[in-house]
Every structure is written in structure tokens, then in C-alpha cells.
């Protein structure tokens, strides 16, 4: 009986091919949207995680304030170069310590300009962040001490400002400061969250403090931990030292934060996941709308086919047989929508993933869930029209034209 109902449903769908297709379009789009969101979100999350991992799990970042992100914790006092020196002196597991301050600035070379992140730091920065040189050199001791106007630039800045020309020895302007390019950093490519890691200019910290920031502040200290030493231990040592140096009472909260990359990774992937969940919820609403579309068309279909239903009932169909027929039709319709949606989603996910340079992470679970959900939509939204059909009075139904 179920098989019969299934065949009948297929025939009915084939008979009204265009209308059936339009009916399930809502489901197709809903299912596709949900799957694409989850797939791309999963890919983005994995990418963030893997890129942050690749930065090195031995990197610790000490920031002013308790939270990540701009504008937060600005009330807390900054660090100073002395803090960085103290770390080097008193935390033996710290291999390299790089104090830094940075700002987003429009840099100019010749008639070209480019907005980029300018960091003032010292040579330890290249060490902790694993930068290598494409050409040129890093800073000299005297350049660092004297806060000379020299800089190293990232690949993106080179491309934007110099094109095919050799940047070494050329001068670029940062606000009122004109500095000479002494080194070019080797490209690292896209980073997590799609930001370009090569989009940076590095100058001596002293030069940054004097010529750009106009103060002695250090906002960020990056520390790399010696191989074989525990990151967790180093983190505790750093926290204790900084609390001491910043004279934080036992009862008081830290006004700085020490994070290792794993923590940062989990925070960032958390953000991606929240975003994915939200977008998926929006997509799920379209599934609901698709379900209402199915209900609407099934009701129309019941009205249109009143006479047919009357004939079936008169010939001896039971109420539940007619109910089943219409219910199966709704479920077959919506499941078909689900299948089309899944195919569409897989195609779109592969395309979008390569477009957005996110890895394609196939999520079998969500495909199964989306399919079951679309079938459930058929049952839920098909039931009411089906019951209406089954309860028709055969004489009334036959009389209708």
C-alpha cells in the first residue's frame, strides 16, 4: 500500500512537473542554504584553527587589559620596554621577547599610497613570529637604539607601493616620518579570518614611540618559549612577574592578559562557530517557509483534485488510504526538494570554498539531518491538506467540477 502510494505520488509529481519544481524550490533553497552555511562554517573554523596552530604553540602574547580586540582595556596602564627587559632577565624559559606598539597608517611611496599596519618593535619580533627575509637585512643595534628611520616591509606593501621595482634602499613616508626600506619579509600568505599577514611595515620601537605614537607605550609583548619548556609554566611565570611589576594586589584582577595561541585559536573558532550557528538559523527559517509553500500547494492540489478524491472514495478507498496518498505525496515532494538541495549545496560549497579559499569540509551529519528535516516538513505540512482530502464527502466531491 505504501509502495502504491509512493508510485502514485511520483506519477502525480511528474504530471505537474513545473509546479512540483516550483513548490519544492523553497525546500531546495532552505536545505542548500543550511548545508552550505554549515559546510563553509566548518571549513572556516578548521582553517582558523590550523593557521593559528601553525603560528606556533610556543608563542605567548601579553596584552594590556583583559579582553582581546581593540578599544578594550585602554584604561589599564601600558607596558614599557623595561617590562620586556625584565621578562628576558627573570623568566628563563623565554627564548625571545618582543615588545611592540602598532597603528594603522597610510604609507606613501612616490605617488602611491597604501593603508597598512605599522609596528614598532625590535629584532626579536622576527624570531617569535617566524619571519624570514626575502631580501635585505634586519635592524642593526644602532638603528634600534637610535630609533632610526628604517623599515622592513611585507610582500603586500611591496607589491602595492613598488610594483615591479626593487624596494631596497627606497624611502617610504609614514605620517611625518620618512624611512628607508632595508629589508623585505618573505611572504606568509593569507591568515586566519582572511587577513593578509604580509600587509605590514616594521620599524624600530623607539622610532615608532617618538615619531608616530608620541609616547613610550608598549601595547603588546610577544614571547616565544624555549623548545622543551612548558608553555603553561612560562605563562604562569609571566603572569606572576607582571602582577608584581604592575603592583597588582592579591585581591585585584589582572589588568593584562597572557594568552597562548591555543587559547586564541579557541576564541577565534568560537566566534566563527557562533556566526555559523546564526547564519544556519536564518537558513533554517527558509526551510520553514518552504514547508508552508508545500502546504499551500497541497491544499490547492486537494481542491483541484476534489473530484478525483471523490471517485477514489466512491470506488472504495478508505479514509486512511486517501490520507496516506496525499501525505506520501507531500513527503516525496519535500524529500525530493531535500535531495536537490543537498546536491545543490555540495556543488555550491565546493565552488564557494575554493572562491573564499576555505577548505571544503564535508559534513555527512548535516546532510542526513537536512534530508530528514525536509521529509519531516512534508509530514507536518502535508498532514493538514491530506486530512482535508480524506474527510471529503464522496457525494459532494463528485458533484464538484
Amino acid at each position, binding site marked *: 500500500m505504501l509502495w502504491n502510494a509512493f508510485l502514485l505520488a511520483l506519477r502525480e509529481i511528474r504530471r505537474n512537473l513545473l509546479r512540483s519544481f516550483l513548490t519544492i524550490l523553497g525546500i531546495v533553497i532552505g536545505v542548500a542554504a543550511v548545508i552550505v552555511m554549515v559546510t563553509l562554517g566548518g571549513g572556516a573554523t578548521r582553517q582558523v584553527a590550523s593557521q593559528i596552530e601553525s603560528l606556533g604553540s610556543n608563542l605567548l602574547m601579553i596584552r594590556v587589559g583583559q579582553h582581546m580586540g581593540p578599544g578594550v582595556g585602554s584604561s589599564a596602564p601600558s607596558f614599557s620596554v623595561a617590562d620586556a627587559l625584565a621578562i628576558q632577565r627573570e623568566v628563563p624559559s623565554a627564548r625571545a621577547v618582543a615588545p611592540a606598539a602598532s597603528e594603522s597608517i597610510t604609507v606613501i611611496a612616490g605617488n602611491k599610497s597604501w593603508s597598512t599596519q605599522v609596528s614598532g618593535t625590535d629584532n626579536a619580533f622576527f624570531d617569535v613570529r617566524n619571519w624570514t627575509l626575502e631580501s635585505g637585512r634586519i635592524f642593526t643595534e644602532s638603528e634600534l637604539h637610535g630609533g632610526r628611520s628604517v623599515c622592513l616591509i611585507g610582500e603586500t606593501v611591496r607589491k602595492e607601493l613598488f610594483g615591479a621595482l626593487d624596494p631596497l634602499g627606497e624611502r617610504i613616508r609614514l605620517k611625518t616620518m620618512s624611512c628607508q626600506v632595508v629589508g623585505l619579509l618573505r611572504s606568509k600568505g593569507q591568515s586566519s579570518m582572511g587577513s593578509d599577514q604580509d600587509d605590514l611595515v616594521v620599524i624600530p620601537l623607539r622610532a615608532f614611540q617618538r615619531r608616530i605614537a608620541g609616547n613610550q607605550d608598549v601595547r603588546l609583548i610577544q614571547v616565544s618559549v624555549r623548545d622543551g619548556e612548558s608553555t603553561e609554566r612560562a605563562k604562569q611565570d609571566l603572569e606572576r612577574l607582571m602582577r608584581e611589576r604592575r603592583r597588582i594586589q592579591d585581591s585585584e584582577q589582572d589588568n593584562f592578559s597572557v594568552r597562548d595561541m591555543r587559547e586564541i585559536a579557541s576564541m577565534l573558532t568560537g566566534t566563527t562557530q557562533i556566526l555559523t550557528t546564526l547564519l544556519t538559523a536564518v537558513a533554517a527559517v527558509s526551510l520553514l517557509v518552504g514547508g508552508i509553500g508545500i502546504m499551500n500547494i497541497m491544499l490547492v492540489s486537494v481542491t483541484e483534485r476534489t*473530484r*478525483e478524491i471523490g*471517485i477514489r472514495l466512491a470506488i*472504495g478507498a478508505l479514509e486512511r488510504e486517501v490520507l496516506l496518498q496525499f501525505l506520501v505525496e507531500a513527503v516525496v515532494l519535500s524529500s525530493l526538494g531535500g535531495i536537490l538541495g543537498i546536491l545543490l549545496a555540495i556543488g555550491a560549497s565546493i565552488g564557494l570554498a575554493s572562491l573564499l579559499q576555505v577548505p571544503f569540509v564535508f559534513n555527512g551529519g548535516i546532510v542526513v539531518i537536512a534530508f530528514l528535516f525536509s521529509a519531516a516538513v512534508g509530514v507536518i505540512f502535508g498532514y493538514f491538506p491530506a486530512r482535508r482530502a480524506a474527510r471529503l464527502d464522496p457525494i459532494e466531491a463528485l458533484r464538484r467540477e
Partner: protein
Amino acid sequence: MKESDPPIPTAERPPLIEFRQVSRIYGRGLAEVRALDRVDLLIQAGEFVAVMGPSGSGKSTAMNILGCLDTPNAGSYRFRGVPVESLDRDQRARLRRHYLGFVFQGFNLLNRTSALENVELPLIYRHIPRAERHQRARQALAMVGLTGWEHHTPGELSGGQQQRVAIARAMVTQPSLLLADEPTGNLDTARSHEIMDLLTGLNRDQGITVLMVTHEADMADYAHRVIHFLDGRVADTRPETEAA
């Protein structure tokens, strides 16, 4: 799902159809219409009965009740001795499925569905296996002279052919009772006589009881007897001397 049909006692061979003071009233108060007014009717298995009467006299109303599609407001209808009023909707559907065949006023075939599939329909609801279904439907179509037309849809068939498909559909289950409401209503004389020959054959060769509404005396002549309706009452029953 296994069929569980209402037990139909056949002891004593009760009459196939027994109306006792059957009334069917539509509407209420001033709008009240007595479509059937205390009708008594007795039809034995194997009869071929014609029903005649002016428009609005209650013929279709009686056919609907006979076909267990409708129930009387008063009186009792026994089909093979079973009081139909006591059956629920599903039980009446099972009765229709197993004992009745309908030829409706105006064909009532499924549109855009082949002749074969139309004829198969009642067999589907009897859960006859596919192969047997095909075979029986083809046989029924052959009996009404539609071999070669199995895959045509009603839209591709003439009125007479559609009517014959409707008859094939009604008889494919070999029902005890075949109800035909104006089976020749929209057909020309030659076609009408073909249909009448068909019904006569079914009645004579397969022992199917036939009840047929008609407006034409020519057609009524094929029946063993004629029941006349007038204003919801049975006017008189004229027994035929001998069937053709």
C-alpha cells in the same frame, strides 16, 4: 495490512436490496426538500432494473443511498441483509469496494490517466497484485471492445469510449451490484444500444444485478422491470414479461 471485511450473512438468501420507508431530506424548515419520501423497494439478486422519473424526482438520491455513499434520514436500508445505517464510514467503503460497481452520471474517470489505469483503480483498493490487476483490467477493456485503447487517456477517447471505460471499471471487480446513473445520457442512439447490450450481457452471463437510471423508454425496455419515481416516491413498478 490485512482486510477485515464486515461479515455479510447470506443465510436464508435475503433480498439483495431492501428499502423500508426510506426518507432522505435535504435542508431544514422552509428550505426542506424531501428527495426521498418513505420509499419501499425490493430487488433480488440477478435482476436488471431500470429507474425512470422526471428530473428532481429523487433517482440519484436513491442511487447514492443504494451505493452506500449516503445514508437515509429515516427508514432502513439492508444490503444483503446488513443494515447499512449501522456501518461506519470505513465499513461502508469496504462494502463499496467489494460488492458494488458504479457507472456515474458523466463518466467520472480520472483525467490524464490511461484507460487501463482507470480500470485498475478499484483493483488497487482491493490489493490485487500488479500482474493480476493488469490482466483483469485488460480483460475488462476487451469485454467493452476497447482492446488497443488501453493507454489512451479520457481526453483522447470519444464519449462512448469513455462510457465504456467507466463500465469496464465498474465491472472489473465482478461486483454483486452494478449501479449506473444515466449510462447512455450523452450518447447517440447506436452507441446507447451498444452500452445496453453490454449491460444486458453482464447481467445475463455474469449474474451481476444491474440497476440503471435512464430517461429513455427505449433503454428501459432492456430491463426486466422499471421503477418509476415521482416527487421522491415510487409511483409504480411495472414487471416486464420477459427480458430481451
